[in-house]
């Protein structure tokens, strides 16, 4: 007959105390096991385990990203009303899931355009997309163009209003 502790952890027959419950210290309303507080070792520092071993689970938002320098707001299309952060450096725009700014529109290429922020200026470059990138009332696709606050960019059926910080 299998033996389990009060929290449903399987016990060896010889165990009197469940090690998993003892560890958390939550039993009986005690405070969490704060006594073992220690700083986590950072990769490359003393005591850090080798290669894949130092890998810790992190949330996507925790990955250090460059600062936000502007925004796009979708004015049309299925994503109307959504805002997209523009960060320092290069920002790819397209339908590919790993683009920095992901737009869901079949008329938009995977890597459709790139927005670069450098020296306090914004430059939009069309990445040789199938259906082109249009600025404001323009009827011809741009190749590379500086973006100014309140410009409207059109890719496929989506219009994006540009706001700089």
């Amino acid at each position, binding site marked *: 007959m*299998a033996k389990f*502790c009060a929290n449903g952890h*399987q016990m060896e027959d010889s165990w009197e105390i469940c090690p998993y419950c003892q560890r958390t210290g939550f039993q009986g309303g005690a405070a969490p096991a704060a006594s073992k*507080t220690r*700083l986590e070792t950072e990769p490359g520092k003393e005591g850090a385990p080798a290669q894949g071993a130092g890998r810790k*689970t992190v*949330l*996507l938002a925790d*990955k250090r990203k460059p600062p936000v320098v502007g925004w796009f707001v979708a004015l049309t299309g299925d994503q109307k009303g959504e805002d997209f952060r523009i960060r320092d450096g290069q920002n790819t725009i397209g339908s590919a899931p790993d683009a920095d700014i992901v737009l869901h529109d079949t008329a938009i290429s995977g890597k459709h355009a790139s927005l670069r922020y450098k020296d306090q200026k914004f430059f939009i470059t069309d990445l040789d997309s199938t259906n082109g990138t249009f600025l404001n009332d323009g009827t011809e696709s741009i190749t590379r163009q500086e973006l100014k606050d309140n410009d409207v960019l059109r890719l496929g059926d989506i219009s994006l209003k540009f706001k700089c910080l």
Partner: protein
Amino acid sequence: MFLRPGIELANLSDVGLHREQNEDYYCYAEPAGDEDFRRLGRLAVVADGMGGHVGGQVASGIAIETVRDVFLAYPGDDPGEALLAAIQEAHAAIQAYAREHPELRGMGTTCTAVALRDRDLFYGHVGDSRLYLIRDSAISQITDDHSLVGRLLREGAITPEEAAVHPDKNVLTAALGMDSAVPGDFSEAPRPLYPNDFLLMCTDGLHGLVNDRELLHITLSNPPREACHTLVRMANDRGGFDNITVQILKVI
């Protein structure tokens, strides 16, 4: 602890070879009253905490305790709704605890919970721990990984082979205790199970090092308890980079 007939249960958690702390936590529970058991069924949960200091294990501990307490006290008769309420409450409890303990800010946890009422399966899931169903010599992953790699895989940007070795395997897109809303997946309708089905729940310390085919083979060729021990040993033999937790429920 109650363990009423209907399933065979086994579980095991191991710190692995590289961590000093086990930030995984897990539980199995049944309501004390037979009437409550008929109404809600049984509960099994695994959680993999993250966050510096002791944040990871605090978050996973709060998640497990809250999910269990809310589930067991749930007044309604829908186990799926009970799981939703329980996971929402756990999310709020972790955030509240982090507000009172600023040194733990940023802690979060995965949480994969199943309720089994008679032979109907309900689940709630946040993060990259997994729930598998093993039936008729086949294994299927019921939960989607809320990870960057999982998202890229679902959208066809990378292949399963690329996913297995992706450098960002540890990046989650959702976790309990983070953000404002609960970003979880919940079963839309109960899923019928049959005798000799297995539910296997595990944290990424196992499924990151032992592939689906191996999980299937080991589960089918061993009693549940030995299967848990064998799977944990395999993960440790391959590096044991993370904490390893596995629960197996066999429907009988």
